[in-house]
């Protein structure tokens, strides 16, 4: 049987005395897509950071690509691509230098292959002409395109995407979408506020309510737009 790309059982996370995620359970088969919905403060980014091995769960079980977190986080690292709120780019390095740095961290060998991969990705997102530009000079949308390149540079098995279309115009969104699409060898967890697009995309949906509790978990077809709207309208606790 295939190992789930993501498996959470009763996941719990607190910051000091504030509960951010409570009793979250979900399983994502390999190659499939999970859309995480929920209002501001529902714990979506926290959930993604736990899956990215950047935060420890406070309780419950979490495993990513068959690796128990946090104990086996080291085995999952390098197999995950993460697009965060911030582009995770050094402002005083150029676009190409940033990607070369990440290629070296992820052990992309040989250097010529890494260079070819970087050139190909920049070409695909329309950033090749800006490869020599300092990251500090990029607009938010351009930085987001480069951030997507950084996240998929090492061809990860699991993509964690926090509002991947933020700052992108429709054309740029169309350019990055093929790079972050789920596939046979790649699962995807996407946090989005655009619940209509999220539900239309199919796959599984995890809707978090205020306080980080699970409002819905199941196939996208099982959650109507009206129900999703109601989750967003719920009064914060």
């Amino acid at each position, binding site marked *: 049987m295939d190992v789930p790309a993501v498996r959470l059982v009763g996941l719990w996370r607190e910051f000091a005395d504030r509960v951010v995620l409570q009793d979250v359970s979900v399983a994502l088969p390999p190659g499939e897509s999970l859309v995480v919905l929920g209002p501001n403060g529902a714990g979506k980014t926290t959930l993604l950071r736990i899956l990215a091995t950047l935060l420890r769960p406070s309780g419950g079980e979490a495993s990513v690509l068959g690796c128990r977190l946090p104990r086996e986080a080291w085995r999952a690292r390098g*197999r995950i691509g993460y697009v965060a709120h911030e582009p*995770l780019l*050094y402002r*005083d*390095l150029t676009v190409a230098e940033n990607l070369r740095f990440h290629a070296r*961290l992820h*052990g992309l060998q040989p250097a010529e292959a890494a260079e070819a991969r970087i050139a190909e990705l920049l070409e695909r997102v329309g950033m090749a002409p800006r490869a020599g530009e300092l990251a500090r000079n990029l607009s938010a949308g351009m930085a987001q395109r480069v951030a997507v390149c*950084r996240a998929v540079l090492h061809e990860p098995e699991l993509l964690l995407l926090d509002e991947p279309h933020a700052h992108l115009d429709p054309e740029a969104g169309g350019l990055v979408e093929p790079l972050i699409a789920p596939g046979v060898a790649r699962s995807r967890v996407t946090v989005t506020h655009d619940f209509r697009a999220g539900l239309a995309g199919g796959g599984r949906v995890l809707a978090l309510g205020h306080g980080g509790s699970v409002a819905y978990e199941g196939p996208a077809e099982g959650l109507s737009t009206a129900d999703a709207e109601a989750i967003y309208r719920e009064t914060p606790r």
Partner: protein
Amino acid sequence: MRAFSAILAKDLRVELRTLQSVPGMVLFAVTTFVLFRFGLDRTSLEGDLAAGVLLATVLFAAILAVNRLFVAERDQGGLDAIRLAPVDATSLLAAKATALVVYLLVLEAVTLPVFAVFFLDSWAALPPLMLVLVLADVGLAATGALISSLATGSRARDLLVPLVLLPLLVPLMIAAAGAAEPLLAAGGPEYGRVASWLAVLGLYDVVFLLVGYGVFDFVLED
């Protein structure tokens, strides 16, 4: 090793491009020497006073770089990016400490001649003094990088680094001053007591490199 070299090369490239740390350190050190020159109203220093002026100046100049060491990693998401990669976290600490050693060596290469012009009658002490400074730099960098990583998430970083770091550096300063004092003695360098102080400096370096290696993983945890 690949992560170490990638992070170190990135840091040195950014420093060369932005000149955020080293020029400030050099300016601070030269200005401090000028202040000591007129404040002490002496054209020549020797022994413990010369060692104290030199080492205190290097130490406070180093604090400027220590404060900035992890700023880009925190503010620009470098820590997250590095933790997502399949690399040993201690390579980040090692790269940061090595970058700090490089900054200190550049600082000393520029300011040691200035110190000699301002305060020394003879330059004979400078070559052996460099050895003392290199050993002190390693200890300072090992401790400084660790404390910088701890303090960088705090809004009171600029206060926290000196408050925590300076007490930890007292043994290092005692050993470095003990080794430098006879080298800067009036009438030329004396080598009798230097070896034992160098051994103490070496021991300090080893202890704090091991402490950093042992605890850095926990520092990076949320």
